[in-house]
């Protein structure tokens, strides 16, 4: 562990970040900010992986590597999502969530 900082403090921080992300995802009306919220959720879980890996198996690196994968996937996913949002904007000149309900029943 990092000197002077206990695991509880770090897990508390990641939980806070995670729920901020969830809250943002559920309440934002704009697709871009929803995307940002998803990034927060992913980052919180990536930190969790690193911390718990260090805490349980200090001489192994799986968790750390996994967080690298998460970052890579998140980047890809963001690129895709932004592409969708841009296309959506071209189509309906809006990035509001309420304007994307045209596919329902």
């Amino acid at each position: 562990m990092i000197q002077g900082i206990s695991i509880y403090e770090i897990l508390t921080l990641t939980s806070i970040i995670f729920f901020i992300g969830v809250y943002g995802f559920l309440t934002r009306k704009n697709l871009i900010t929803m995307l940002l919220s998803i990034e927060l959720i992913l980052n919180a879980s990536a930190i969790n992986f690193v911390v718990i890996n260090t805490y349980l198996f200090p001489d192994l690196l799986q968790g750390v590597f996994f967080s690298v994968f998460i970052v890579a996937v998140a980047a890809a996913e963001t690129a895709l999502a932004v592409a969708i949002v841009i296309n959506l904007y071209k189509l309906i000149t809006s990035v509001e969530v309420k304007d994307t309900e045209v596919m329902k029943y």
Partner: protein
Amino acid sequence: MDFSYTILIPLIPFAVFLLLGINYNRIKPAVSGWIGSLGLFTTLGLSYYTAYQYFFVVGKVGDVYQTFTQQWRWMSFTETLYIDMGVLIDQISVMMIVVVSTISFMVHLYSRGYMKGDPGYTKFFAFLSLFTFSMMGLVLAVNLFQIYIFWELVGVSSFLLIGYYYTKPSAVAAAKKAFIVTRFADLGFLIGILIIGYYGGSYDFATLNDLEGNVITNWASTSFMGLSVITWGLLLIFMGGAGKSAMFPLHIWLPDAMEGPTPVSALIHAATMVVAGVYLVARLFPLYYFVEDGYALNLVAWVGAFSALFAAIIALTQNDIKRVLAFSTMSQIGYMMLALGVSGYYGHDGLGYMASMFHLFTHAMFKGLLFLAAGSIIHAIHSNYIQDMGGLRKYMPITHITFLIAALSIAGFPGFAGFFSKDEILVAAYEHNKLIYVIGVVVAGLTAFYMFRLYFGIFWGKDTKYEHTPHESPVSMTFPLVFLAIMSAVGGYIHFSEYVTVDHQPFEAHLNYPLAAIAVGVGLIGILLAFVFYKKPSGLPDKVSASFGLLYRWAFDKFYFDELYLFVTKEIIFKRISAPFAWFDRHIVDGTMNLIGNSTVAGSEKIKKIQSGRMQDYAFAFIAGAVVLAMIFIYKWII
């Protein structure tokens, strides 16, 4: 001797059918006529070669004709249950391939002239080839299933050819009628096959007809309603045969089938397909004869005798020449059935069987000729009705002479083919049952009368003024007439009893002069009456028909059998039986299904608002669910 090349006899017409059928709009009519005729010519050559080989070279060992089979496993279900396909070469099948290929070839040649200029020329030849293929397959079948398959195939080709002029509603109706009536009869045939197969243990003709075999020695083992089940099976099979051969209760399709082109009537509805029923009974003759002491065979005799009389009476009154010929065909097939029915098995007792096959042979020749000659007349004056004809002998000499020969032959005039075969039938009937014999003689007289009514009405009678002067048909049409006329004249001199017998041993058949004299006398009276009535136009026929009054009317309307069938189907079956079933189906069965469907639709209409389409609602539901699950887990396992 290896007879496996005979498989080509049906396969060549089939190849021609495929060739013409697939390329029917690419092949020029002239070419397709040649292809069809050449294909048939090959078949004809093979058939004659087979007949020569069988009857004169290898068929007879000692004094007994052998049976050759070539078969291949077609469908194999288990060790003991399998269906073969193959060719069966014996006396009647060889005789039949000769008849079928001869008539079919003549009809092909004739059609090249008759159908000239028809838009469906190639299609017509393709159908003719399909029919020939099916008929050959039927004749050469080795077991009941194979015969059933080809039986249906001839039914289909008959349907296609009757409905050939498919723009005419009457032709379409006739085609459907023929198909439905024969299909209905074939239902009985199928059930009969299954009964025989189940209780007899085999479908093969060789096994079934074996005199020491299981079926013939053991027929009494199971009975149903007082009759052996095998007898029931045979009766049902005869029902199929009666449907195809237009025997009495199932005859209604044959007169209407005359809507097809005339060469088709000659080939299918006079010479070959309609005798399939006779062939079927002959094929299973040992079963018919030995099982239950010939109970089923007796029925065959009576149905045949009744049909012969019934059809001959109707034929007296009809004015459409093709319909007269159709009823005449029915009457003559009744004769063949009658002859089979009165036949015995051993030696000279098998005279009826031989006579039936003999009559089948000669009838094919003269009735094919009569139809082709009728086609030639219709071709010349574009009408089917006797009233529109008269004095044609001056315009169509060849048709006149050939028609006369055929008419003399069918009337049993001494020396012509029909005389010999009819005489054998009457002798067989006389030895077996006097009443059937009397019916046979009466029918012979009626036949002579209505044939010469046609002859005098068409070629003599009044001098009709024609819009266009009729002229003789082209050579392509007169050649088959002449050929068949020669056959009708001399065909009777073949000693059939040396070739086709029921117990495979030749015997000597002699003319029975007293009986022959009676038959000829009756026939001459018929001819004489027709001469008096119709040689010169006179009011005599009308007076006589008026004196019969209601009876004439009754026969003229074919004893109201069409109306009876219509009444039974439309008023009783459709209204009383089918309509309630339809109601049940529409309201109860469909209603249940509709209820299930409709309630699902209504339910989903109610709950579809849940699908808001906003992703955040779904995400909220998901996260809320995850939180609730997490709380449950924490509560249960951690606290």
